[in-house]
């Protein structure tokens, strides 16, 4: 969209600056406070990493971080496989039913609270003991939807004639998949998996409802929620900074691997 007057361009730029300020000031504030010696937002008393060492010494937080990684890694791995298969399955079908589309789309749009209580009731009525495994099972639901969405986007521009050529040359179906299809879609699979990983690391509501008793199934977001409930503490700022670094890294990688994951 060209031909804009300098005045228009200036006001559009000013608008963007204002929106980015709104989006980033709260985050930057937390990061800055996490290095504040005194810890309280009331005054800057000097640079310090003591809140980070306080975090490292906190057994509950370490255990929650490990649980979060277990949940995110396993649910992402399962979702990467299932989501890729799902995407391949849908994109190779000639006719895509509306019901199928809705089923695959649903986990992304269904309000978290509804899915969370549905799963809680389900596990509770079936008397499935709840713990990390129920969080993992539940996270796969939305993770696989995101992986399949990213992989499907890549498959839409996929030239199926290469797989036909491979088959014509006598390659077994699996060989074709491993040697032709997979390498072509792998970046999308990894990008989708990284996205799923981020979602899983940050997911609170479903984990909160489907977790079992005790530290054994407390994830980091659950720990953060408990800490916030008990007030504003400097440790939360440090923890928030670390969690954001993980998310941002995974997302940047995802974006690099597959241009257009976050932006079309």
């Amino acid at each position, binding site marked *: *969209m*060209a*031909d*804009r007057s300098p005045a228009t361009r200036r006001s*559009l730029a000013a*608008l*963007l600056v204002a*929106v*980015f300020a*709104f*989006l*980033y000031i*709260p*985050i930057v*504030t*937390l990061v800055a*406070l996490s290095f504040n010696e005194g810890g309280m*937002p*009331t005054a800057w008393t000097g640079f310090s990493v003591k809140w980070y060492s306080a975090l490292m010494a906190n057994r509950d937080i370490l255990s929650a971080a490990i649980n979060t990684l277990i949940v995110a890694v396993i649910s992402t791995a399962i979702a990467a496989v*299932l*989501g890729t*298969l*799902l995407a391949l*399955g*849908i994109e190779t079908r000639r006719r895509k039913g509306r019901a199928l589309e809705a*089923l695959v789309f*649903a*986990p992304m*749009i*269904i*309000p978290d*609270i*509804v*899915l969370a*209580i*549905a*799963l809680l*009731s*389900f596990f509770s009525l079936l008397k499935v003991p709840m713990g990390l495994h129920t969080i993992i099972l539940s996270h*796969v*639901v939305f993770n*696989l*939807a995101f992986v*399949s969405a990213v992989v499907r986007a890549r498959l839409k521009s996929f030239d199926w004639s290469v797989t036909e050529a491979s088959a014509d040359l006598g390659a077994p179906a699996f060989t074709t998949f491993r040697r032709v299809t997979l390498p072509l879609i792998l970046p999308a699979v990894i990008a989708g998996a990284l996205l799923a990983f981020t*979602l899983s690391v*940050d997911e*609170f509501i479903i984990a909160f*409802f489907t977790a079992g008793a005790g530290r054994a199934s407390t994830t980091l*977001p659950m720990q*953060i*929620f408990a800490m916030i409930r008990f007030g504003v503490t400097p440790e939360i*700022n440090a923890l*928030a900074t670390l969690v*954001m670094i993980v998310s*941002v890294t995974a*997302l940047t990688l995802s*974006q690099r691997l597959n241009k257009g994951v*976050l*932006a*079309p």
Partner: protein
Amino acid sequence: MAPALLWLTALMVVPCGLILALGFFRRGLYGGIDYTFTLENFALIIDPLYAGIFLTSARIAGLATLIAVVIGYAAAYAIAAAPRHRQPLLLFLAVLPFWSNYLIRTYAWIVLLNREGLITQALRMLGYEGEPPSMLYTEGAVITGLVYNYLPFVILACYAPLARLNPELAEASRDLGASAFTTFRRVILPMTLPGIAAGAVFVFVLSVGNFITPALLGGGRFQMMGNLIYAQFLTANDWPFGAAISMVLIAIMMGLLTLQAIAAEKGAGERREGANG
């Protein structure tokens, strides 16, 4: 694809079906479920108290949606108007906060808004000496939190159709003597309506179903449908009623998605017309 569909069926379709069924049973005296068929949970939904909560949460969510759409659309427009090579980075930066932890993003506003918080400190530093304003635990704080959390999605949803927009169309409209505003209203807006609608549905449904933001930024003074569902499951132990409210939430979402699909059809129609004319 079978294992994935099986997974979705077992852990999404069946549990959601279960919730639908639960809505027709009675709550046991001490929580739990008394398996007698009843419609009283759905009758309770039109009870003035609960209907009132739905309306209030619809109002708060509606305001959040309106604000998020106006700001988000403007930001998406500004990004689409930026030099082409800068657009991916701008969009990535706009969406990035969306993928960081929701609790943390909400908590940041507690730090900023509380009476002894950063904004008050800043005002005092600027020489303000009066009673600090009460910003946290207000409807404004809840709406700010919702807009803040969902804005990136609106930007993303609105950017896609704006970026696809053929600049020649707008030019043609202007060449035919239409004012900039008329061009926007008659050409640009209809063609980007599906993006706006998608963003709006998303913000509205997630806001209505939210329970964290009203709890943390509203000081428990505001109830969204999400808080009500949460309370039925974790405090009132009335699962059947909680299930019934969830179904209402899903029904609202499906209704809005249908409207969005209609908007998308209409947008596609406008695009065809635009292409032909």
